[in-house]
């Protein structure tokens, strides 16, 4: 099983014969410890620190089908190096485009993504309701929005409902995390408080995880349905991430805050922007990785599958929908 490697420290990654050599730089910027990453073991690389590399490395990574995702100092996802497309399917591409162009077809899919997302985030609220946190009012309100989903006539309307659902959900968040934190309003670019910073960072990891899985299928990551396909943006990953964020990101936030794995001192406020300090970033990444590897017993496949594999399965379901084999039903946590 190939693994995701996260590079936090500044250093140099190079091709060394037929494998990867990582040289960490010390505080003075001088080459220090040398490590080898066996190339067969690498699924993709997430680069947070400052990385030196040359084109021979990227040629090598390209041939091995390894993508590299980059994040800036403020933990924003800035872009990816994607190996040449190795799975092309013309017929699927045509179908994917048609499902975008045709308004009813696009709406059908876009609605499914919002439905899946709402189901999974309600699942989170209900779980905590069952454990004595009073979030009933938010559940009711969100259910009201969900009931309106079938009547939405256009994608902007769906996006509006999705926004309302999320806004209500965030209001409920405050009751699920320790009293030191309050969501206030969702702020991005830049996130202004701790919860927002955590959520932005988590969402980015989720988005990149979805992109990595899409890459190993024949789907085109730029043609999306709920989000508007944007140039230079892999917006299909945003669609899929909608469904998985409540499970992969939100639960992670509850966990790290409630278990005090991350504390108020792990954040820095800087010019109206809130960012995670590096040790906290590592904690989030570690917990996120644990979550991706965690397995559940799949109902229809009758074997255990990891959360990461669930994302791939979602790609298969989407492919089947686009090829008109079987209608897409969004992933809904069943446990």
């Amino acid at each position, binding site marked *: 099983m190939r693994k995701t490697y996260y590079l936090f420290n500044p250093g140099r990654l190079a091709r060394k014969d037929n494998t990867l050599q990582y040289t960490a730089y010390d505080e003075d910027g001088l080459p220090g410890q040398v490590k080898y990453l066996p190339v067969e073991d690498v699924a993709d690389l997430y680069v947070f620190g400052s990385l030196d590399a040359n084109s021979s490395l990227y040629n090598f990574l390209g041939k091995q089908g390894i993508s590299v995702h980059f994040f800036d100092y403020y933990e924003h996802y800035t872009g990816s190096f994607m190996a040449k497309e190795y799975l092309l399917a013309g017929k699927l591409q045509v179908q994917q485009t048609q499902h975008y162009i045709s308004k009813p077809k696009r709406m059908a899919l876009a609605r499914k993504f919002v439905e899946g997302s709402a189901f999974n985030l309600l699942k989170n609220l209900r779980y905590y309701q069952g454990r004595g946190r009073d979030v009933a009012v938010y559940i009711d309100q969100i259910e009201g929005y969900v009931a309106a989903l079938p009547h939405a006539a256009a994608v902007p309307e769906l996006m509006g409902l999705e926004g309302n659902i999320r806004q209500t959900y965030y209001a409920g968040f405050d009751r699920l995390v320790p009293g030191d934190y309050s969501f206030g309003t969702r702020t991005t670019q830049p996130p202004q408080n701790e919860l927002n910073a955590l959520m932005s960072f988590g969402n980015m990891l989720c988005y990149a995880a979805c992109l990595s899985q899409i890459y*190993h299928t*024949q789907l085109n990551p730029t043609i999306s349905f709920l989000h508007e396909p944007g140039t230079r943006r892999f917006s299909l990953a945003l669609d899929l991430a909608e469904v998985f964020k409540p499970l992969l990101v939100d639960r992670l936030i509850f966990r790290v805050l409630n278990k005090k794995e991350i504390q108020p001192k792990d954040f820095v406020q800087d010019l109206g922007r809130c960012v995670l300090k590096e040790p906290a970033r590592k904690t989030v990444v570690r917990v996120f990785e644990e979550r991706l590897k965690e397995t559940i017993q799949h109902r229809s496949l009758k074997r255990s599958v990891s959360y990461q594999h669930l994302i791939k399965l979602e790609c298969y379901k989407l492919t089947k929908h686009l*090829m008109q084999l079987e209608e897409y039903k969004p992933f809904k946590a069943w446990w």
Partner: protein
Amino acid sequence: MRIITATHVKYYHVCHRKLWLFDRDLWMEHTSEAVQGGELLHQTAYPQRAERYREISLGGSKIDFYDPHRRVVHEIKSSQKLEESHVAQLKYYLWLLEEAGVEGPTAILEYPKQRQTLHVSLTADDRTAIQQWLTGIRQLQAEEAPCPPTINKPFCRQCSYYDFCYVGE
């Protein structure tokens, strides 16, 4: 007309749905550990294999080991479970060679792990059967052909399309 390869012939004997998907470029092999294992076996099973064997391309199909002097095709497989489809694949190779003007080619199917081999040759009946296979494959390749349903066989569990076919909701 779309190309027909030996893989099409093999899948035609395993599962029509798999053939339909494969023909539309929906490949899953890249995710399959079984396929990687097969490739490894292929590279390592016969280290002493003589140099006279050649890799040849014929009508879109690739024959990995062909001995042009004795006119023998070798094919390595890891398990005898789907033997019928392996034999069909080899018969298709032999048919292709005959079409290309080679007289009386034969084939050996090799299961190195089981230490078994099987000799395959082409009969008149086979030649008729191959025409029927090709017709069947072309029907599945047709633009309007719907995707065949899942077959729910025990060997589905080992197929690289298993998750795709049975993921459900």
